[in-house]
């Protein structure tokens, strides 16, 4: 059930991590942040995650790529936005969306010397809070590929020259034609929860890369990954990771949904293993999003799409389904109860599927056709909680404190 609030929402109550009769941890109040091609919507859930109150649209008419709640304070939101005509910017709210303040200096590349063609940020695509010991600090990934950092809560952004101005990396990023249909992107900015200087990033195209010095230097991490047939996997430019996630339970465990399959990596090893080979052949292992269980490194969810022939990028056969593994990718199980059984030709983009930390875990995904789906039982049963939204680009589940 969704209730609509036309005016701005009141400040939600602080969630209590109440304990149920059986002593298990109940879910906190979940805030689902939905970024779309025409604005952003916030869905406030009750403790049971059955009832949702919608707050939006925010930034109606803006192309919003990502909205993220800062888990370090539980109330600051950052939103990456642009319009079809106006340049890209970042907005910040410290009152859960009641008011927004625009960045003083949004992510922007260095001005090129006279006579040279410089790069221009088309849009900020990805937002990641830095380490919990670095309050107010954020990373942003852009299209075309660039990595930026703010140390003041998203007001002033500076590029990381170790990546943005590195000639080798510029070559690996390729041209504007070497990315996704709406531009090449830097995404999946991951901070190791044990070490603020240990970072991962991914680029479409441009591969997965790792830094041990807070982004001053980088090294490719693409061994074992496949590329499109007839291309050379030794060429970093040909690698197209769609979404990389780290297990909160075991930060040495990484999963990746790639243009060419589903992979797993257990550090310190450097070679990815294509666990998507174990998916049903008729479904394949192509898709965009990747979601890892907050407390179980062996449990992940993916949303396969049709990556055959001309790459329709729709649900295979028009029958959408989530697939889950409980053993790190050895076996996969189809989870489609409640989802359309026929003629549903949408899919889910790389940022548009996520999990909360409830018990059982709640899952959320938004579709290219503007539907918001949720499961309160780790994917066994799905419910649509919003329809007729614009194309959904990103979905994040945050917990209010």
């Amino acid at each position, binding site marked *: 059930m969704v209730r609509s609030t036309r005016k701005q929402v009141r400040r939600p109550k602080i969630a209590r991590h109440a304990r149920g009769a059986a002593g298990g941890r109940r879910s906190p109040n979940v805030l689902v942040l939905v970024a779309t091609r025409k604005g952003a919507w916030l869905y406030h859930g009750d403790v049971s995650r059955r009832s949702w109150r919608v707050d939006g649209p925010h930034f109606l008419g803006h192309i919003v790529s990502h909205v993220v709640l800062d888990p370090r304070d539980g109330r600051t939101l950052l939103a990456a936005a642009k*319009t*079809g*005509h*106006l*340049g890209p*910017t970042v907005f910040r709210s410290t009152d859960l969306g009641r008011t927004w303040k625009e960045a*003083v200096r949004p992510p922007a590349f260095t*001005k090129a010397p006279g006579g040279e063609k410089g*790069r221009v940020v088309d849009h900020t695509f990805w937002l990641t809070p830095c380490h919990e010991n670095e309050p107010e600090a954020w990373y942003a990934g852009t299209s075309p590929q660039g990595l930026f950092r703010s140390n003041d809560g998203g007001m002033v952004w500076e590029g990381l020259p170790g990546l943005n101005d590195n000639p080798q990396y510029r070559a690996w990023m390729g041209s504007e034609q070497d990315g996704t249909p709406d531009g090449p992107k830097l995404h999946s900015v991951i901070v190791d929860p044990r070490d603020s200087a240990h970072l991962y990033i991914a680029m479409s195209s441009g591969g997965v890369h790792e830094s041990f010095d807070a982004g001053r230097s980088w090294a490719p991490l693409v061994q074992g990954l496949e590329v499109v047939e007839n291309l050379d996997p030794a060429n970093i430019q040909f690698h197209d990771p769609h979404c990389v996630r780290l297990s909160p339970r075991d930060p040495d465990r990484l999963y990746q949904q790639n243009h060419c399959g589903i992979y797993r990596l257990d550090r310190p090893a450097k070679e990815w293993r294509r666990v998507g080979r174990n998916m049903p052949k008729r479904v394949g292992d192509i898709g965009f999003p990747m979601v890892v269980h907050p407390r179980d490194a062996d449990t992940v969810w993916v949303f396969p799409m049709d990556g055959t022939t001309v790459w329709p990028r729709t649900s295979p056969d028009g029958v959408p389904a989530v697939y889950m593994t409980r053993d790190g990718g050895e076996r996969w199980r189809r989870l489609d109860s409640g989802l359309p059984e026929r003629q549903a030709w949408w899919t889910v983009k790389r940022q548009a599927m996520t999990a909360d930390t409830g018990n059982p875990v709640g899952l959320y995904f938004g579709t290219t056709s503007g539907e918001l789906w949720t499961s309160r039982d780790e994917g066994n049963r799905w419910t649509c909680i919003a329809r007729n939204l614009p194309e959904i680009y990103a979905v994040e589940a945050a917990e209010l404190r």
Partner: protein
Amino acid sequence: MKVLIPGPLLSYTTLREVDAIGGTLTELFVDLDRRYPGLRFRLVDEQEKMRPHMRCFVNGEQVFDMMRPLHPTDSVHIVQALSGG
């Protein structure tokens, strides 16, 4: 000089027509940004070029050169191009 502001930028100026100064378009946009922080980057990218879907007219003439000289009596119209979706 008088500067006509397009609808998408009214969230910055609140006014359809504003006053600003500058000897060139570059200087004019710097002054507009001083008066209405954030406006300039929505119009002009980090390489000092007008964004692809924005247009600027001076006394009715479409101008692409950001160093185009301006006079205090000029009338500047900023418009969004006929594009979108």
